């Protein structure tokens, strides 16, 4: 079976110092959504730019439907669409003019482009705004047009680079709905995002990227199983109390707690029940929390858990990492965690 997208050990360094990609590999099956999840600067966008023929990799190779993105760049360009933070639309043109321009540059005939532009404007709820310059569009409308522009030539493979960053919840839901429809029609999608929830909702598989590497890969269920369903944040008055607190709470969570500053973060499977136990334990040890919160796991937690795991397998003390928890999150290469959750 042909893969929609394949990245093989992609490497890219900007200038002498900035290593944007440090060996990124992943594969996207046809007709599926693959989510690349990671914080700003993790290398998601660089990977997308290489796979969409904008940039050449220093080493490694990328393929779209079996075609090499470097040696067969023109062929690849006929197969893909890109929408995202860096591939812009022209704000001086109207929505329709933008779509027409992209269609004509895809060498579609004039009448075909006109029909397609109407179709897309209707599909994205922009029919009324189609003949207004983009300058007058709201952020959500502009993003929808951006995605529409990527779809003019009916690409088989769609790259969406942070399509919802900065959007309000309603616009975000609209974009999600649209992605689902496209996948229903057989389009393969590579989605980059900073939001765990987004990857969770849309993607069949997720690759977690940090420091230019894929540090974990799996289905959303696998990744969340690794994480615990919810997170308890317990704040203390100072770092030493927080460290004590983490020691006391070491056994109650689904994972070992992590100390970030004066805050203890505890991934748990059964939030309310564990919350009661946590309060009881703290009370027994005469530790008074300053803040207490139950929340959904965030991307940060994924990294904490991934890096935490590595420390455990290395044989470090699971909870004794309070002082360097922060540092490890930022600087330690965590490739060893890749095997966790990679395959079921």
């Amino acid at each position, binding site marked *: 079976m042909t893969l929609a997208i394949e990245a093989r050990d992609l490497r890219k360094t900007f200038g002498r110092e900035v290593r944007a990609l440090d060996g990124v590999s992943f594969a996207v099956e046809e007709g599926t959504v693959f989510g690349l999840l990671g914080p700003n600067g993790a290398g998601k966008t660089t990977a997308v730019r290489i796979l969409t023929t904008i940039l050449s990799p220093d080493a490694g190779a990328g393929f779209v439907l079996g075609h090499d993105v470097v040696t067969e760049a023109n062929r690849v360009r006929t197969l893909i669409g890109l929408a995202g*933070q860096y*591939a812009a639309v022209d704000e*001086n043109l109207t929505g329709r003019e933008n779509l027409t321009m992209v269609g*004509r*540059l*895809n*060498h579609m*005939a*004039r009448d075909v482009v006109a029909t397609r532009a109407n179709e897309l404007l209707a599909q994205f709820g922009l029919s009324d705004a189609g003949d207004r310059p983009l300058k007058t569009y709201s952020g959500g409308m502009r993003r929808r047009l951006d995605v529409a522009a990527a779809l003019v030539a009916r690409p088989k493979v769609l790259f969406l680079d942070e399509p919802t960053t900065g959007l309000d919840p309603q616009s975000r839901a609209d974009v999600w709905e649209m992605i689902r429809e496209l996948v229903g029609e057989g389009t393969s999608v590579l989605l980059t995002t900073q939001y765990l929830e987004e990857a969770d909702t849309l993607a069949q598989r997720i690759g977690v990227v940090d420091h230019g590497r894929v540090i974990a890969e799996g289905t959303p269920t696998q990744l969340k199983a690794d994480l615990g369903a919810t997170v308890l944040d317990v704040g203390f008055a100072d770092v030493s109390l927080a460290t004590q607190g983490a020691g006391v709470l070491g056994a109650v969570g689904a994972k070992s707690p992590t100390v970030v500053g004066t805050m203890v973060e505890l991934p748990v499977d059964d939030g309310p029940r564990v919350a009661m136990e946590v309060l009881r334990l703290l009370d027994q040890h005469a530790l008074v929390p300053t803040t207490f919160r139950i929340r959904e796991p965030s991307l940060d937690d994924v990294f904490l858990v991934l890096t935490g795991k590595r420390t455990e397998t290395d044989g470090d003390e699971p909870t004794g990492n309070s002082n360097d928890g922060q540092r490890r999150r930022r600087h330690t290469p965590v490739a060893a965690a890749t095997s966790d959750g990679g395959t079921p």
Partner: protein
Amino acid sequence: MSITTVIAPGAGLAPGADPAMPGGVGRLRWAVADALTVTKRNLIAYTRIPEALFFSTLQPIMFVLLFRYVFGGAIHPGDGLSYIDFLMAGIFVQSVGFGGIGTAVGLADDLQKGLIERFRTLPMARSAVLAGRTTADLVRNVFVLLLMTGVGALVGFSFPNGALGFIAACALVLLFAYALLWGFAVIGLTAPNSETAQVMAFPILFPLIFASPAFVPLSSMPNWLRWFATNQPLGAVITAERSLMLGGAHVPGSTAGHVLVALAWCVGFLVVLAPLAVWRYRKT
């Protein structure tokens, strides 16, 4: 892909929707069609910012009025020539010169805003972004020259060498403007953002435009400056253009000789600057 397609955007007929890249003639037709698509986009953009269009054409008009009425009385071109007849050749080159800053700013802006990233993901000719930008700006220059001609006529320009000489002079200015645009394209592709592009272009232009025979006769300059003003590219083009506009009698040397030197500069600029711009474009 080559420069030749860039210079001659003639027939813009649309090929079919075949997604594969053709070779030979088909490829050339695509390059031309793509260049025209980008040209159209740039021209539409100009009409959507009427303020920019208005104020960028206001500036050369103000220069005409400034030199005609404020400085003109103090400058004597000699030879029984009226200052406005002398001035027009200089004003034309000055207008297309400063107008070129818009090319640099526009390209830097496209880069900055990510539009060029979008273009790079499309199966379009790589040459089209630069060809489309320079062609659109050439069209803008035609518009500016027409306007300048009107304003010049209103304040007393008398077309001393007749319509034919004047049209030949305009053609020369447009060719030079087009060659110069590739230099501005290099600046636009080198600058980190559009503001910097503007600041970078200005100090390169300023001495070339003002240390030239554009506004004052060479005879008023010290020898060393006169040598520079005569031989630098803008000076050479202004002299040739003036010779065409006024007739050989008012400009020392043969018109044909001046025009040849000016044409040599145009070709030289194109041969050097166009590949340089294309190279910068591929690198960014």
